[in-house]
């Protein structure tokens, strides 16, 4: 085995290295900023870092299209493939959007400190490893790097008890689920004698799906993965964490962390566990159905906006899982389209919620949006677009995620799941339209919501809203971008 560090290894690791360097750099330069009014410069540094990372990922992309085949680096521990490139784009976009909506929010909360941006970049480094990793230990390190950064970010409002509570809950439950997942990893290692995913896949194929140890390994590994994507029955942390965390962090957790966890989940199920699909398809099908059911039904009664969106994001996780349950290329395209669209619609919503935050008061109830149409019609219309997108109603982009998932299920002959998934769209529309109702139809008994706006927040909301409509009306390039980035045979 060749243990020297080659240029290929460096090329593959470049996004991770850049993210870590810029993260550390922010920690240092933060000391130079004496005047707290200039803390936004840290955010700017992080954005510059993102530009470099984006260039590195662009190089990956160019290399892939020129070489025409995947690049394996670090003795098989990391790869560059369309999958990793696609997910890296998602992480870059979501970090940029998260930074844009964070600056004003943190200033407002009086917690504007440089390490926040550093933590974001570290978390993204973990995500990049999750997207590129092909080896159990590497993947685990990536996962923990991401999770640890998030634990701190969730509790970033030191004086806010809900934020602290959310962080400790997330930490304890997260650690527990990571433990179970590592147990699953150890079983996989035990049966194959290797931590490389393709090696494990070979060993699994030899054993066949009737082996109980494989069932045990699959279930324990799944627990950790399902926890991260907040699938039922491991979803309990999500509402509390979403509610307590600083709003931009909530957005970041709900999009980037979820996408990264899906990257890990897809790698695990499509590479080492691929031959067990007759075991995991019914298993994940049941989980997805339960996730959609609980997510949608619990969301109906929520009055807190962030909790409502937490349950909605749980139900979205159920839909995305269905793409894997379909087990065909259409379903997998559905996952990538869904994640891409979900990124923008969720950030759009959270940008508006961030803007809602008022001085010294947590304005996060659904009713706080009442009369938004009267005061800020632009934002109300953007929010309407996001709600339609979240519900999956054309002509918004949200429709196409559901379109592919439904089509995948029908191709796979999973008619019952398809019918349930389709009818839950109507349930979801009910609670999304509660928000619409409050914004547009309610007579403002209370004082109308006034927004705390900044250029970053406006930019995020407008970009997301315009993309929802543009993708919705002309989805061709976006479908092209997303499809075939996740493939059935990823070995």
């Amino acid at each position, binding site marked *: 085995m060749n243990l020297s560090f080659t240029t290929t290894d460096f090329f593959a690791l470049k996004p991770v290295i850049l993210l870590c360097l810029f993260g550390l750099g922010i920690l240092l330069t933060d000391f130079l900023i004496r005047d707290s009014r200039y803390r936004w410069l840290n955010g700017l540094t992080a954005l510059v870092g993102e530009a470099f990372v984006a260039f590195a990922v662009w190089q990956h992309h160019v290399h892939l299209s020129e070489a025409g085949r995947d690049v394996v680096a670090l003795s098989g521990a990391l790869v560059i493939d369309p999958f990793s490139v696609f997910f890296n784009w998602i992480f870059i976009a979501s970090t940029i959007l998260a930074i844009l909506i964070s600056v004003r929010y943190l200033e407002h909360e009086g917690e504007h400190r440089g390490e926040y941006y550093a933590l974001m970049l570290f978390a993204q480094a973990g995500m990049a490893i999750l997207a590129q990793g092909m080896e159990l230990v590497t993947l685990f390190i990536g996962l923990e790097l991401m999770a640890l950064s998030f634990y701190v970010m969730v509790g970033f409002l030191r004086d806010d008890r809900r934020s602290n509570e959310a962080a400790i809950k997330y930490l304890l439950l997260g650690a527990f689920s990571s433990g179970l997942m590592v147990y699953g990893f150890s079983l996989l290692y035990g049966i194959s004698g290797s931590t490389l995913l393709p090696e494990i896949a070979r060993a699994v194929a030899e054993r066949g799906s009737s082996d109980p140890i494989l069932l045990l390994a699959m279930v324990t590994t799944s627990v950790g993965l399902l926890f991260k994507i907040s699938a039922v029955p491991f979803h309990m942390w999500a509402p509390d964490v979403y509610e307590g965390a600083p709003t931009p962090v909530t957005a970041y957790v709900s999009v980037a962390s979820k996408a990264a966890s899906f990257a890990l989940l897809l790698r695990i199920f499509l590479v080492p566990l691929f031959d067990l699909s007759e075991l995991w398809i019914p298993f994940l099908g049941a989980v997805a159905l339960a996730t959609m059911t609980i997510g949608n039904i619990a969301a109906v009664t929520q009055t807190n906006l962030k909790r409502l969106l937490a349950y909605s994001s749980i139900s979205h996780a159920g839909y995305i899982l269905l793409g894997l349950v379909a087990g065909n290329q259409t379903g997998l395209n559905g996952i990538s389209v869904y994640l891409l669209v979900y990124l923008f619609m969720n950030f759009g919503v959270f940008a508006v919620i961030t803007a809602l935050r008022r001085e010294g008061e947590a304005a996060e109830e659904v009713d706080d949006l009442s009369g938004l149409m009267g005061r800020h019609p632009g934002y109300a219309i953007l929010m309407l677009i996001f709600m339609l997108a979240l519900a999956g109603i054309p002509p918004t982009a949200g429709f196409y995620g559901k379109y592919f998932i439904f089509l995948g299920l029908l191709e796979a002959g999973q008619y019952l799941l398809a019918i349930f998934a*389709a009818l839950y769209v109507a349930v979801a529309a009910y609670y999304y339209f509660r928000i619409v109702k409050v914004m547009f139809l309610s007579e403002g008994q209370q004082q109308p919501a006034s927004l705390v706006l900044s250029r970053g927040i406006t930019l995020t909301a407008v970009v997301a809203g315009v993309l929802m409509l543009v993708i919705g009306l002309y989805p061709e390039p976006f479908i092209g971008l997303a499809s075939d980035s996740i493939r059935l045979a990823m070995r």
Partner: protein
Amino acid sequence: MREHILSIVWLTPLVGMFLLILIPKEKKELIRLLANIIGFVGFLVSLPLVFWFDMSTAEFQFVERLDWIPSLGAQYHLGLDGISLLLVMLTTVVGFLSILCSWSAIQDRVKEYYAMFLLLQAGMLGVFFAVDLFLFYVFWEIMLVPMYFIIGIWGGTRRLYAAIKFFLYTLAGSVLMLLAILALYFKHIEEFGFASFALEDLMNVSIIPLEMQIWLFWGFFIAFAIKVPMFPFHTWLPDAHTEAPTAGSVILAGILLKMGLYGLVRFSIPLFPEAATAESTVQIIAVLSIIAIIYGALVSLMQKDWKRLVAYSSVSHLGFCTLGLIALNPNGIAGAMLQGINHGISTPLLFLVVGIVYERRHTRMIAEYGGLANRMPVYTVIFAISMLASAGMPGLNGFIGEFTILRGVFEQNVYWAGFAVLGIVLGAAYLLWLFQRTMLGPITNPENEKLKDMNLREICVALPLVLWCFWIGLYPKPYFDILEKPVAKVVERVRPGYFERAGIPNPLDATIVRAELTADGVAKP
């Protein structure tokens, strides 16, 4: 111009909406004026359709076909045949009149109101033009949101409930339709190896087993049955129609309900002919239609609320239409489509009539009125005509539709026809009784003493519809000519050789001769 006429017709209200948005919201009069002009222009640009329309073919005309999402096979594919022509003209006329009738009724949030109406208008026209199922679905959903707002913002006291109920019912139906569309689309790929949502391509799919066909048929059917609405999916209708502002009720009753009928005759029945002619399907739909006819009429009889009475009468009238459709013969289907148009003329009139007194008195309770004929003579005449048109008096449009439907139904099943006749009797009963209670006799309520008769604008709104009632009632031939070919095509599709067996000349034969003459390939034999 002629090649793009369909796009022009549906884009006119949409472009108008964007123009409207540019006007500051304080200038209410300007907004009203502009919205009315746009509505009228929308009607004018749709007129050429009538003149350019070729009645001698059953094929789609003015076809526009562009790639939209090549990777999915979805196309921007529009077309018009006789069935959609009538509905499109109904939409542009009723759409304009409903904008006109909102002049004084809507005082709050005027700009949003008209913007929603124009968006709705564009969506409705798109639904009737689309012959690509993906495009159709998109238009079908686009319509939902403006209607939700129209009911929810400018509606009556229970508007929030009515709006969300309307929205969720329709959405639940349409997602099931989406699944059916996708399943059909997938089967098409399996059979032919390329992706397409075009209606003509999907009609060729032959590998679907009968059992699955029946499932898919019901998938489409539920979406359309909710829209029609058929018993037992009708419960959203009384709420939505009653709570919506007058113009909203007019559009709901006039156009939106027709979309259900249109969907059945354009998609459900031709796409799954074997499922549509299956004994169980026909029985179920016929029984549900008969229940709707009689139940709707009985419930109407019992209403204390004027507007709710009219709303329930729709359930009964649309029951006739679905019964005619499922007779699956030329008279039944043509009668159903014509009765759809008739209902789209006379029921909006009835809603306008309610709206006029509601605007003056702010109550819809029948008991509050009585003897209005003494104060409002013009109003009484208009109400009488619309009431009689709705009840099916000879010489007015309702009679022609009901008569044709009954002929079709009678050919199919005598017992169904018997129940349908019972429905007509009940229909006359609740309408005449309503008229008697509100219009005739002395004025019992002093509030009604000072009621003013209809003003010029209100007469202008009602007059075209009244004239239309007489036109169809006295000279329906052009309508049957327009409907003949496309209806015959549907009948041939579900019952091949129907005309030969019945010994009637097949209207489509002429088309075939003609298709050989025109070498442009538009009309395919």
